[in-house]
């Protein structure tokens, strides 16, 4: 039962990654692409983390997975902001 539930979360997470990558390839400009990569991958990694946490044996592992998600989310959001700001400033200059 728990395996099925974990599997559902993991598959849902992978679908988010797929959608984010499709957005990265299809969207017309850099800002829209950042929307796709940042948001879809954040949700995808979160669902993936929940799925793996359901299969974890110890609470320490669950905490580690949660920590991993948090660090990844902060990093991706910071990166998204910096890429957008850099491009915006370059546009303003040129």
């Amino acid at each position, binding site marked *: 039962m728990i395996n099925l539930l974990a599997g559902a979360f993991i598959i849902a997470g992978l679908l988010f990654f797929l*959608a*984010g990558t499709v957005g990265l390839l299809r969207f017309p400009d850099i800002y829209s692409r*950042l*929307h796709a990569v940042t948001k*879809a*991958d954040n*949700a995808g990694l979160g669902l993936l983390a929940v799925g793996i946490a359901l299969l974890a044996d110890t609470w320490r592992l669950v905490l580690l997975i949660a920590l991993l998600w948090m660090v990844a989310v902060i990093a991706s*959001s910071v990166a*998204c902001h910096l890429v*957008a700001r850099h491009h915006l400033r370059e546009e303003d200059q040129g």
Partner: protein
Amino acid sequence: MTSSSGIAHRLTWALTVAATLMLLWLVLTGGKGLPYGLTAALLAAAISAWVAPGMVFTPRPLGLLRFVGLFLYNSLVGGADVGWRAMHPAMPMQPRWIDYQLRLQHPASRTLFLLTVNLTPGTLAANLHGDTVRVHAITADTAGELARVEAAIGALFVESNGGEVS
């Protein structure tokens, strides 16, 4: 800042850093090599308090609950929304720029706002200039989303009047 409040401030900071690092060590190692972890945590806390003491924020419990709830909800809806737009044959989007007037004053609140906005459905914070946030939007109801995030962060911390904490 008087020297006594300076010392109290540094001590609070050192204790918070030490406790956080110790907790991190416990989660990462599962309790192995505790003496090393304790030494490193105390040393790092002392150096941090000496070189660059920061402010400790204590979030309000209800505010924290509200913010975490909004953050998780926004993450899921934001990912689903942009994923749906990417997979849709016509890619329905209304890309445009919005200048949002930010009322949050404290740098920590502002950073949290920028980071959360990037994961909120349809919004992306590209620049902060003065009190104005340049937001790139791809959905319709963007101002409502931004106001909701700002309200949740405002309820999270007790903002001191006028903002800047000395």
